[in-house]
């Protein structure tokens, strides 16, 4: 009996007896709980590959071939420790799975030499996994006791970086698709909708709408055809939760999709993945093919009478397509511009039919809720927000990567306990959460907790879950400018406030971070006038924009102005950037004691702002200086200094 036949007949079939010894043992093998051969796991998510996982993979295979060692090599997704990639785990028969960090191809040989001789190369060790069946390594910490993992509560990331995302057997061996089959065999769609409603799950994509309510609305709308759309159009800069879930555990998402579609009465589901996510697309495509082979989608799934089809769509690159009505237009083959709501998609959505749109993380929670019941889910988190939230931590954090914490966790704990604080011993300045239309919070707000209303009340949003840590070298005006630039580029151009307003805000911010030489009185007036308009303009953009992108577009500006007003004022009045980021505001001077008059800077200065005779100290004429910093770079005697 081959693997597939075994899983279908003994595990997934209606009369399966999962307690049979033969079955439990095979399942343990399939999910690598017990192994007969050494297994090498290589973190091969996109982050891993960027860090060189492909080379590591080749090196491992070459090593095994050369040494004639029989072992299995598995490419797994991302466990969340992006800054430690490439990660390599090794599991010897009977021994606990042990994890190593930064295993580039150069060190593969020594690392494997050590481990196959049962020695631990402590330089690279991260920790070992806790499993009662296995013997522990001495002096190696347990992975889930590392500070990074200790405060986390992993539901959707539970198997990311651990299980084999290429293998449907692995997923089924961990109990996968049994919840789905339970649902279609025993539950009505209505019942599932109610369970999800009871669990109080709220959308993880930003709006925080109650998932159950949305489902019930679509479920109750009478129509010959309904659709489910999985929004994987994640394109916030600095957010990669959805990608990691898809790459690390694609079947979890697909099971969530299958259950949801059945619950709302949709026979077709679309998954809209950003085109840049080539690996995620590949993983999903492969997983859907596997589902077809196992008969878990298609006509009459496991004789239940349920028909179900999944269509994978590549989003051709537009941030606004994360907005649900824009996404619908994009799937329909139109320009991805939002439509007015109402009508809401749950009533009139894709191709005019009732459509539920949920994002990846929301759907990935569904199997857990249906497996363990709404009450269990309800125990996690806080009353306004149940369950967990995945964050992508990047920027100047010590550890960048993915974390999943219960709702209600303090932001301070995420940054300082889990992610290890700010790197390079720099001071913490701000954390930007919620993506481009989120906000920057200062140190004084770090005790805010993760949730919906708790953040809204402070003018912040949970967004899709990007969390960017900023240190003292970051200029908050520059950051606000960066986000406004992003938003004005990504605005679809349909409605006036968003199209023209974001551009004007961006220009106003450009003006205050620039120091035009020979600025006329009129231009100065224009600059000050612009600043006076910022608050007004923001209010109108928020009040009148058509979709969420516009309505939240002023957030990065407003929060930066609220919490970092001094920095704004410095830029405006003193024409100074304390972080030294706004290049044109920099002022240089020449230390006469150090300058030997080599004329290197004088020759290179593009604005003829440096004067002096050869072999005599030079001077910088401030009025002419454009702050480009070329003199600073070319001076070999460290005589050019920043004021």
């Amino acid at each position, binding site marked *: 009996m081959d693997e597939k036949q075994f899983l279908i007949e003994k595990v997934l079939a209606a009369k399966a007896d999962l307690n049979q010894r033969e079955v439990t043992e095979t399942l343990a093998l399939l999910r690598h709980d017990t192994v007969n051969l050494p297994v090498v796991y290589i973190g091969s998510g996109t982050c891993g590959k960027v860090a060189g996982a492909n080379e590591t993979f080749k090196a491992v295979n070459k090593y095994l071939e050369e040494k004639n060692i029989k072992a299995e090599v598995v490419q797994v997704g991302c466990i969340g420790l992006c800054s430690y990639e490439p990660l390599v785990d090794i599991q010897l028969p009977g021994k606990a799975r042990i994890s190593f960090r930064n295993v580039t191809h150069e060190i593969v040989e020594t690392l494997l030499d050590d481990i196959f001789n049962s020695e631990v190369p402590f330089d690279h060790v991260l920790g070992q996994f806790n499993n009662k069946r296995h013997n522990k390594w001495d002096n190696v910490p347990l992975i889930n006791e590392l500070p990074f993992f200790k405060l986390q509560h992993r539901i959707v990331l539970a198997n990311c970086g651990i299980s084999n995302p290429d293998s449907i057997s692995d997923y089924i061996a961990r109990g996968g698709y049994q919840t789905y089959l339970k649902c279609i065999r025993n539950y009505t769609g209505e019942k599932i909708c109610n369970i999800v409603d009871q669990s109080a799950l709220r959308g993880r994509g930003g709006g925080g709408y109650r998932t159950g309510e949305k489902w019930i609305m679509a479920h109750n709308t009478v129509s010959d055809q309904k659709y489910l759309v999985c929004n994987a159009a994640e394109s916030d800069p600095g957010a990669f939760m959805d990608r990691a879930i898809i790459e690390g555990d694609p079947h979890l998402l697909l099971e969530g999709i299958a259950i949801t579609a059945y619950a709302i009465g949709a026979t077709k589901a679309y998954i809209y993945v950003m085109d840049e996510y080539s690996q995620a697309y590949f993983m999903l495509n492969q997983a859907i093919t596997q589902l077809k082979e196992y008969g878990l989608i298609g006509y009459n799934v496991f004789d239940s009478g349920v028909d179900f089809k999944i269509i994978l769509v590549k989003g051709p690159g537009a941030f606004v397509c994360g907005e649900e009505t824009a996404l619908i237009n994009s799937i329909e083959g139109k320009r991805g511009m939002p439509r007015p709501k109402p009508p809401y998609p749950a009533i009139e959505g894709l191709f005019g039919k009732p459509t539920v749109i949920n994002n990846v993380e929301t759907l990935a929670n569904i199997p857990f809720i249906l497996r363990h019941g709404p009450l269990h889910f309800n125990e996690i988190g806080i009353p306004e927000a149940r369950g967990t939230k995945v964050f992508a931590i990047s920027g100047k954090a010590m550890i960048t990567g993915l974390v999943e914490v219960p709702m209600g966790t303090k932001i301070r704990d995420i940054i300082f306990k889990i992610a290890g604080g700010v790197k390079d011993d720099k001071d913490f300045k701000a954390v930007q959460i919620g993506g481009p239309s989120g906000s920057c919070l200062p140190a004084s707000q770090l005790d805010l907790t993760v949730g919906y209303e708790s953040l809204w009340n402070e003018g912040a949003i949970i967004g899709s879950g990007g969390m960017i840590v900023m240190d003292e070298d970051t200029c908050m005006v520059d950051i606000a400018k960066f986000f406004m630039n992003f938003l004005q580029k990504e605005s679809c151009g349909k409605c006036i406030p968003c199209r023209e307003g974001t551009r004007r805000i961006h220009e106003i911010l450009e003006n205050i971070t620039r120091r035009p030489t020979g600025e006329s009185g009129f231009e100065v007036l224009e600059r000050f006038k612009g600043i006076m308009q910022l608050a007004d303009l923001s209010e109108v953009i*928020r009040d009148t924009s058509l979709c969420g992108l516009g309505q939240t577009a002023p957030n990065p500006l407003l929060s930066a102005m609220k919490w970092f007003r001094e920095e704004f004022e410095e830029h405006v009045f003193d024409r100074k950037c304390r972080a030294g980021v706004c290049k044109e505001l920099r002022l240089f001077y020449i230390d006469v004691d150090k300058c030997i008059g080599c004329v290197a800077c004088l020759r290179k200065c593009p604005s003829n702002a440096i004067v002096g005779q050869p072999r005599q100290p030079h001077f910088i004429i401030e009025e002419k200086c454009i702050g480009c910093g070329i003199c600073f770079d070319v001076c070999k005697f460290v005589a050019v200094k920043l004021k």
Partner: protein
Amino acid sequence: MLFDIEVNGKTIKAKREDTILMALERNGLKVPTLCHIKDLLPSGACRMCVVEVEGRQGLIPACSHPVEEWMKVRTHSPRVIKARKTNTELLLSNHPDDCLYCERNGNCELQKLAEDLNVRERRFYGKKNKYKTDPSSASLLRDPAKCILCGRCIRICEEIQKITALEFIGRGNKTQVGPAFNKGMNLSSCINCGQCVMVCPTGALAEKQYPAKLQDALHNPAVKTVIQCSPTLSVTLAEEFGLRAGKDIEGIMYAALRKLGFDFVFDTSFGADLLITEQATEFYNRLKEGTILPMFSSCCPAWIKYIEQTHPDLLGNVSACKSPQQMLGALVSNHFAPLAGMSADDIYSVSAMPCIAKKFESQREQMTHKGITDVDLVLTTRELARLIRLNGIDIEQVDPEHSDQPYQSRSTAGKMLAVSGGLTEALIRTLHFLITGKETSLLKIQELRSGKGRKEYFVKIGEYKLGFAVVNGIGNVEPLISEIKKGRTDIHYIEVMACDGGCVGGGGQPIHPENNNIKARAKSIYELDEKESNKFAHQNASLQSVYNLFLLNPGSEVSLTHLYTTYEEREVMR
């Protein structure tokens, strides 16, 4: 079912399935909008119609949001006004600001909004998008810099006219509206109907103008200037001077034109009578000889371009008759000029039309005979009105005059070409005479006077059982064509006018964003037909004398040389 909602503290009645905007309009409350088009699905792009709804965080667009019973709406609260004003200022901050040089100065929705909202100070500065104008089309001038991206032109072109020559290109603040590959309009599938011009709130789309040439001609004593006015013009020109829509000022118009300096003033209705006579003959011949049927009308140049580019296989079905404008133009050069002892070279022949496609038509290769164009210049209703104003003519103080001989008289049949179905009615009258030798008593065919986009009428004339189809709005033509292609044979004559309502709704007409006045104009034409005695094209006395002295009879050699044309397949980017 009606229910109450509260607006500005007062209770008004609203209908279920109404949008807020509809409920407000029915109760006489106005909110501004720049992107809304009546009867089309709301797009919600301009955000000018936003209102405050109690209990809602942001402002709600009235055009797309349905009314609900609990609603308390404020349409002009300070917050709403501020939002509208700021958004208008934002539009202005990316606008060329050259109102004084603009076609639409004084009749611009953006300008009016800025005025109404009391925009008096420049608050936003910044980069403006720089675009080149697109002068490639003979009819249309596109100036993307003035475009506010409301999308009306795109929607009218796609959803109503079903041409889809225009679309948004690019994204965000770099978006512009243009044809495929952002090339020239002349290469696009645009049929020059000008409906986009009619809905454009600013001067981004306008008719192509050639003003200098006309001024030269009018003031050059060596050149004799001739103008002909479309049947529609007399009932629409008044609107441009603030008079009642549909008011007929035919005589005043002729007098005004003479004051402008035109040496001879003719009425295109005469050309229309000529067309009806020729086309009825052509049609009757086709019936008798059993050659290609159904026959399509040919007086709408937008329709002609459409069929040339879309259904070249059907070109044989199109009547070979030139349009009234071109027929009269050809007569002026070849009949009137010798008669008046002038050389055709010395005549500058102008026409005033409710249409911008006529500009394109007059430049067609086939409309030139021995190096002389039938019509040298086409003005729209709007351009003519401007010309009258420019010359300081107060039309309320002008005494009516007649048009000039030898084309002075006209029938009301010719006048009927102004409205959709009018050509067919007029043609049936003459056809009846051709077949039976008697005049018909059926002078009011209600089936052809409805406001529908597609009308059909079946009648027995003599021994012939005939079917007539009338299409107005080019978007309605495709279903009929596919029926014909699938073998439908009960239709023998098809009149197609590209604009809604026929020429009274043409793209060269006065622009009134809130009311297009099509019905009032049509009513005026029908009243004329009722009132006046000569209702038959073939009874037109001037026409009869032109036949006697020059053309001899319909379809004669002379007619064929001057009044008939050919068509050719046209490659465009579709």
